[in-house]
């Protein structure tokens, strides 16, 4: 699908077209979920919050203006704000959320990967939000540097440096981390 195609769907959605809104939801909800999963560390909460992100987007859609950035970038911004709110609430409640990946990978997959989604999430939780985002977009979503740069609204050079620092930090964290730590809310 070209950017023009996406732009047409977005235009229709801005005008309140239910079919276009459903199309955008089906296309981007999985990516928003993964982003939230790595920010929150809880699949159930990430699922719930994914639909909340789209409800927020629905409220704001009439005011949305296309300015050359992907629609997904706007959704990530809403998701980022929602996850920050969530973390703030959690800190106030001071409660510990149990680790709960969306569905546990099989032992074969674990053995092959040497790094589980849960381990990655726990390590990511110690990175800055920008570092988290660049890791998720580059290595989970598999996007190129140029695509990540457009989504995050930064230059490719800045993204490369961000990626380097994020990988350095992640390598240190994974080397230090003990097994079985629980993800905090």
């Amino acid at each position, binding site marked *: 699908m070209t950017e023009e195609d996406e732009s047409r769907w977005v235009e229709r959605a801005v005008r309140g077209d239910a079919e276009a809104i459903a199309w955008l939801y089906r296309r981007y909800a999985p990516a928003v979920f993964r982003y939230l999963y790595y920010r929150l560390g809880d699949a159930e909460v990430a699922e719930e919050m994914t639909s909340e992100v789209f*409800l927020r987007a629905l409220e704001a859609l009439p005011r949305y203006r296309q300015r050359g950035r992907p629609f997904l970038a706007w959704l990530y911004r809403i998701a980022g704000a929602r996850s920050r709110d969530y973390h703030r609430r959690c800190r106030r409640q001071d409660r510990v959320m149990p680790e709960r990946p969306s*569905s546990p990978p099989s032992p074969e997959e674990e053995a092959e*990967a040497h*790094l589980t989604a849960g381990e990655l999430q726990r390590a990511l939780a110690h990175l800055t939000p920008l570092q988290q985002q660049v890791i998720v977009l580059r290595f*989970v979503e598999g996007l190129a540097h140029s695509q990540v740069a457009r989504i995050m609204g930064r230059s490719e050079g800045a993204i490369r440096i961000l990626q380097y620092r994020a990988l350095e930090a992640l390598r240190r964290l994974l080397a230090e981390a003990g097994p079985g730590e629980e993800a905090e809310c």
Partner: protein
Amino acid sequence: MGIKKKAELLAEYLEGPWPGRPEEATDLLPLLELARRLETVRRPELRPEALAAGLIRVQERLAGRGVGPRRRLWRVAWALASFLLALILGTAGLALAAEGSLPGEVLYPIKRGSEQLRLALTTAPDLRSALLLSLAERRLDEVAAVCSPAVCPGDLLADLGNQTEEAAGEIERLPEEEQVEPLKRLVDLTTRQQEVLRTLLERAPETARPGLERALERSRQGQERARQKLERHGQKPHPDRPSAPPGGGPKHTPGPKHSPSP
């Protein structure tokens, strides 16, 4: 090697072929290895039932809040209706305020505009002739109110004659049996016109006379035609108030004689 150079090189290796073990990439190897591991981490997927449930929530909100074009259309319609209502009320209020205005006053053009609008909207010949007679009576009242022997606006005198002739023309278009009453009203109007105009003319200086004389002559001609028609209908109009030549008739001081509410 600086951080920028390292970051560029790392990005190059990540998007290009595996570097093997060149000298410059030695300290990047752990990061390349980590990147390879990250790429093999199983991606958490949104469960299909959660995807469907989320879509239902979005669609319910969409239906419940009516963010669609229909609601927007209603908003536009309401805004338009409110604007039109305000416009109508404002215009009506202004027109009402302008009703009592006289030539030369700020609201007078609004009064005349309102009259033209009513005239344009009145198409039935009987109503139209009655309206034109009322408007001609208004002009007469205005002449009586604003004219002095020395000064009387030429366009006001012209309007007086024009509207009287228009009313006469409209009466002629009525069926014969409906013409009698409007013709009597026309004769009465022209009689009063001549009284007012003669009074002005008696004391008018030479410079002001031609306009007044022309208006008087038009009024007399109109009245003569109306009288002849009435006689054809077997009617005798107002024998006690005959038309008279300039200076020869009964004296009347100019002033409002009639306050019509057309």
